[in-house]
């Protein structure tokens, strides 16, 4: 493995653009976690001794920070180990608590697998899952939604922002459609990639459930949140020692929670124009420098401020990823070759990309750790890498 890494040599620059798959961490969030481990907050917040109280205090303050940013009550937030767990709890847990005969669930066809798969599992329990189609830029088909939401609709799950192509939905309009058709229908939103990218005023939006993840906003891994609107019935899906909030068993991971709150504060406060500028520079430069490239997802204000997703025709995505890795640029692809299941990204398929378009896709997320020089480096290297691979390809464009 060392050899494998050694082959990379010493690229003149390293640019990490793969935070969609695994996030970097803010040094301050890491520090906060370490401090909590070392000084206060390593205890169990439910135990009545000083260390427990200190831990409780850290938990309390962290939750206050998060609930203020999200404009919720603290009591509406439940910690999980990540958005995967939050999505599972939202969908499986609310179905568990569902005692009526509304058994239809609508999920958009471009949701993250941690939304789609739990929903599909509910088919075993007699639920009917309907996938909501999207248009070529990933926007929900509102007309479809209008015809499908009815008295039988138990839950609708649509993310504010798509994780792969960055589409920002008009969530307010969508929720209004759903609630108007059936005010009892629960609305869940996987906001793992939305925190800090759109203003999520949970108090004002008519949302019932929303999932968040710390590492998606450059906090520690292994911690997430589920927002559960006050009064909503939901049951735990795993069982054990009661934590303070009762819905996810086990002692809270207070150091990770403290780091999460710290990251939320930093990411929320940051001026994100810089990210936006880098995003557009990267997109526009590649589109104009390189032939046969396609932008996946919308342009402009309807696109997440940190999302870049381009398809390079006539080359295979994993090959580009490896090629870029050798240049010190780290991204990911929706190509079939990069996934364990050897299927191209379901998101790219849903927006109607052809096989060969999905095949050459590259996903890059601009982070607060990137600067303009990074982007210039990427803009310089991508065309060369793509050109080399195209020269190897039996299929040439034109």
């Amino acid at each position, binding site marked *: 493995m060392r050899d*494998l890494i050694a082959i990379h040599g010493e690229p003149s620059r390293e640019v990490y653009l793969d935070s969609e798959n695994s996030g970097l961490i803010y040094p301050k969030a890491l520090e906060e976690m370490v401090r909590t481990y070392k000084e206060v907050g390593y205890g169990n917040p439910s135990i009545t001794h000083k260390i427990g109280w200190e831990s409780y205090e850290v938990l309390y303050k962290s939750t206050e920070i998060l609930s203020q940013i999200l404009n919720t009550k603290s009591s509406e937030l439940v910690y999980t180990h990540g958005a995967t767990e939050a999505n599972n709890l939202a969908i499986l847990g609310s179905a568990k608590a569902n005692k009526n005969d509304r058994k239809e669930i609508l999920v958009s066809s471009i949701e993250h697998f941690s939304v789609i798969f739990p929903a599909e599992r509910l088919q075993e329990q007699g639920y009917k899952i309907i996938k909501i189609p999207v248009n070529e830029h990933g926007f929900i088909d509102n007309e479809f939604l209008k015809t499908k939401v009815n008295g039988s609709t138990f839950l609708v799950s649509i993310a504010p922002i798509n994780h792969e192509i960055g589409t920002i939905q008009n969530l307010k309009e969508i929720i209004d459609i759903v609630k108007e058709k059936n005010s009892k229908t629960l609305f869940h939103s996987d906001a793992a990639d939305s925190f800090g990218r759109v203003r999520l005023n949970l108090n004002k939006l008519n949302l019932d459930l929303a999932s968040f993840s710390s590492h998606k906003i450059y906090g520690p891994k292994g911690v997430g949140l589920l927002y559960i609107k006050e009064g909503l019935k939901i049951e735990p899906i795993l069982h054990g020692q009661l934590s303070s909030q009762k819905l996810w068993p086990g002692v809270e991971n207070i150091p990770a929670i403290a780091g999460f709150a710290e990251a939320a504060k930093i990411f929320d406060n940051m001026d994100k124009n810089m990210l936006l500028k880098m995003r557009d520079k990267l997109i526009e430069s590649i589109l104009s420098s390189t032939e046969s490239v396609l932008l996946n997802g919308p342009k402009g204000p309807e696109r997440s401020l940190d999302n870049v997703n381009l398809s390079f025709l006539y080359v*295979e995505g994993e090959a580009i990823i490896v090629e870029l890795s050798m240049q010190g640029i780290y991204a990911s692809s929706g190509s079939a070759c990069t996934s364990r299941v050897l299927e191209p990204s379901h998101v790219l398929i849903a927006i109607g990309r052809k096989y060969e378009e999905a095949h050459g896709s590259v996903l890059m997320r601009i982070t607060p750790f990137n600067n303009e020089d990074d982007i210039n480096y990427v803009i310089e290297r991508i065309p060369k890498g793509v050109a080399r691979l195209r020269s*190897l390809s039996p299929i040439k464009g034109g």
Partner: protein
Amino acid sequence: MSDRIPLPYSPKVLELFRNPKNMGRLKDANTQAMAGSLACGDMISIYLKIDDANHLIEDASFESYGCAANIAASSIMTEMIKGKSLEYTWNISWKQISNELGGLPVVKYHCGVLAVGALRRAIRTYFKEKKLPNWLPKELTPDEKHALEEEKLIEVLSKKMEKTKKPKIDLSYRSK
């Protein structure tokens, strides 16, 4: 863990991906073939220049529209067969290729299979109008059948993908 997690690429794979040998079209090839993989949608072309007198492979090259493993497999395969007899070449297996590469991750086995598939097809193409040597079975070998099936499936698959509504893409979303 090695059973469940596909081991990442060997250094050899990366090395050959970075500096592939024998790439591109071979001008004076006297046979060539293409093969595609259903598993991932990749494609590969193999070009051979065969000495008609003694059935030795004088030169070989490839083109790949595939992953890093596929490029490396094609590269090492073309190296392995240069100067070798057609009979020897016919019998090269994807396992041999994988071994030469220092092992392929489980999900990448088919990248080697694809290379071998294209190679055998090129050899068969060479004998199309000629008398088959006795080491070359008349019937398609199981591997070749497998490759054929995969290709048919690819067609089906990509047709299926074509059928889903294809929006016109705004030109500003596309480079020239």
